[in-house]
């Protein structure tokens, strides 16, 4: 039996790595990957809790998160591809027409 604190700690670390990735990278694709990392961290927490409480609800939630993530990835990548077509860049610090 894995102590719940282990899983939670791992999940927290992964989540924070994801956050850092969003904050430090300028490539929209890598930022997006970091966000996926955050979602996975949350998933891990769900699975760990689910295991701890012997309830399946957490796992079902993870299933839904994965579906949502898949949909999100499709839309997000489409937007990024479109951006690349328009501006030949995927760097978020090169797009700020809208500001102020």
């Amino acid at each position, binding site marked *: *039996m*894995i102590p*719940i604190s282990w*899983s*939670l700690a*791992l999940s*927290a*670390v*992964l989540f*924070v*790595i*994801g*956050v850092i*990735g969003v*904050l*430090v*990278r*300028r*490539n929209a*694709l*890598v930022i*997006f*990957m*970091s966000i*996926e*990392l955050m979602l*996975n961290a949350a*998933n*891990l927490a769900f*699975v*760990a*809790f*689910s*295991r701890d*409480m*012997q309830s*399946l*609800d957490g*796992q*079902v939630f*993870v*299933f*839904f998160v*994965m*579906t*949502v993530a*898949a*949909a*999100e990835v*499709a*839309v997000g*990548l*489409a937007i*990024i*591809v479109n951006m*690349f077509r328009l501006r030949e860049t*995927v760097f978020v*610090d090169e797009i700020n*027409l809208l500001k*102020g």
Partner: protein
Amino acid sequence: MIAPALFAVFAAIAVVSALSVILQRNPVTSALFLVVTFCSLAGIYLVLHAEFIGMVQVIVYAGAIMVLFLFVIMYLNLGRDIETGLQIALRRGVGWLMGFALLAAGVALFRHPWAAGPPAPPGPPVGNTQAIGLLLYSRYLFPFEVTSMLLLVAMVGVVVIARGRRAPGPAADLPPGAATGAEPRGDA
């Protein structure tokens, strides 16, 4: 005894590869490390007796989602990210600082005593695929159906945004260059 060891190994791999995702300059490498992270997470799910989720993790995340990512990276023919300059260094510093601050806050918070949910009922670990299927089609039927609409929206959305460069029919949108010129912006 074997389970904790496995967990530790998978956890270490997950953390290292996650760090690599955000440290690597080459997006392709980042994506591949992300696959590694996802796979090690799948391993952890198996250790935690969530077999179904573990398998789906490999198939959906590592298999489908990351392939999509790689496909896009290749399609856009991206090289290594250029990450130099004061601004980027500054942002990196602030970013890591924020991350550690969050982590520290979390650690400090969780040093208080805490209880995770109601006590587990005694019995063998649950987590078989059949049970999840039953749940999905009974209690979770409604969100399940809503998810189908979500996927529909994603499909429509992708088609709308990423269909060929050629705009369709008479309702053609402006070419990119003209679009900026045509619209006076107040906050220039």
